[in-house]
């Protein structure tokens, strides 16, 4: 097709995409603005779009007074450890499933059922399970619980990836006397790195954001960010700026990660639907 400058339809396209960006990003922007407003500008009529000064004290209040620092730390511990553990278990599992067809056809069904199980439907037995082990309100419980949710997803996506990459290189390595384990570590794993980054990113985002099980399984000892936010929003004297600051801190890591790993995010999120 010939390119002949901007057509009317091109302009329309730009306008529509711009409108979509405004709709989908303005709530985020409003939060960012509130996060740097001084207290007397939090609730005003008319609402203030541009704060008179950048009031960074909201962030120190959020971090120190309202448990934001502990929240960030806990979220980081839980999300990174469960992501790491899921990858550690999930990559070999996916390799086994993809290469030797362990589990066969039924696997994807089992995996999907776990993925889409309404959390509420398993909440009661899960609660009793962890409480019988005396692990309620512990890092261990939350990390393992998230690993349970991440693992099927990771092995499902990586399985199809391992099926797609050619066996030839591994087989020639095996013929040359390498063990299966070495073939896995030195050939399959490096080839799978982009896919591993993609699923690792998604596992991290999931664990960082998870709310329901944090609500059920933890109380005061482990307080991830998604868990403390709604608590702070209760009551009458809502400190909008401080909460906005915590919320911003809660959104920042995943958003930054998403932009850095853009390419992998897009590939990872469209998992299974399309082979590129």
């Amino acid at each position, binding site marked *: 097709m010939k390119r002949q400058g901007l057509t009317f339809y091109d302009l329309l396209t730009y306008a529509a995409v711009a409108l979509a960006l405004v709709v989908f990003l303005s709530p985020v922007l409003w939060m960012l603005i*509130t996060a740097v407003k001084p207290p007397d500008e939090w609730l005003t009529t*008319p609402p203030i779009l541009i704060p008179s000064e950048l009031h960074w004290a909201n962030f120190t209040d959020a971090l120190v007074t309202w448990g934001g620092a502990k929240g960030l730390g806990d979220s980081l511990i839980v999300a990174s450890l469960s992501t790491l553990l899921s990858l550690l278990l999930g990559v070999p599992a996916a390799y086994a499933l993809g290469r030797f067809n362990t589990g066969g056809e039924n696997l994807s069904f089992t995996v999907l059922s776990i993925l889409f199980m*309404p959390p509420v*439907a398993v909440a009661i037995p899960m609660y009793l399970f962890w409480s019988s082990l005396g692990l309620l309100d512990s890092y261990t419980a939350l990390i393992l619980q998230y690993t349970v949710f991440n693992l099927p997803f990771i092995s499902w996506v990586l399985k199809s990836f391992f099926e797609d990459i050619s066996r030839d290189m591994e087989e020639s390595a095996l013929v040359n006397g390498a063990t299966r384990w070495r073939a896995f570590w030195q050939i399959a794993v490096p080839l799978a790195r982009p896919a591993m980054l993609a699923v690792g990113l998604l596992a991290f985002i999931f664990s960082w954001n998870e709310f329901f099980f944090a609500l059920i399984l933890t109380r005061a000892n482990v307080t991830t960010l998604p868990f403390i936010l709604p608590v702070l929003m209760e009551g009458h004297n809502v400190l909008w700026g401080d909460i906005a600051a915590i919320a911003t801190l809660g959104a920042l890591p995943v958003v930054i990660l998403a*932009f850095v790993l853009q390419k992998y995010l897009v590939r990872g999120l469209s998992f299974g639907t*399309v082979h590129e």
Partner: protein
Amino acid sequence: MLAANSIFPLIYAVTVAFQSYQVLIPVPHRFIGLRNFEKIFSDDLFWSSLGVTAWFIAGVVLLQFPVGFGLAVLLQRLRRHQDLLVTLLLVPTIISTSVAGFQWVQLFNYQFGPINYLLGLLHLPQPTWTADPTLALPCLVFVDFWQWTPFMTLLLFAGLRSLPSTVVDAARIDGSTGWQLVWRIYLPLLRPVIGIAIILRVLMAFKLFDVIYVLTAGGPGIATENLAFYTYVQGFRYFDMGYAAALSILQLIAVAVLAKLLIRLTRRASAAMAKE
């Protein structure tokens, strides 16, 4: 350990569902057969929560799919920055529901929210949004739309990008206009991907919980109590574990049927891609 964690809840839920198990009443649990299940069908609150769930599912099919598809086609028309724009649009999907919920609490604020301020400028009525029994549910459906339409766009966009360019070019050379391209090429060729995207989102909408908890807690009254939230209320507010488990099993069956459908579509999609 992991297997136990995923199988145990199921078995436990099934046994509890046939018992009269109310934590607050100190009577030994006893087997009551199907009575918990019979209760479901004569329970008005169950039917009303099913109605709320239907609203969210309708939102996915009637709003998120058309808008998401439209945006995907528009992004496809752009020549540059596609990945960047998709990632920007995805910010509502990536951030935690707690964070997103806070943003909408601010925006929906009756007295100081920017939405009501703008409505006031236009001399339009200023509703109480999530506190209004008739508006609360549409508000939540909209927040879900805001959070997940970008995800729909991403899936469909990835699908569009994987279409063989020869087909699209051939259609262009034959003189197809933009609309014809959408109706005659994109929609039919993308049918498997569209099916997957819609079922995936319907499954997620079916188990929706976080948004409701953060924004309305099921209220006002029971106006925004969906099936998942109602189960939570029965289990963790009234502590009627037997009944909550029966409700859970019903949801698990529904999800299993949908997941089965999803797998069939995925398989057909990859078969179709392999053929091309």
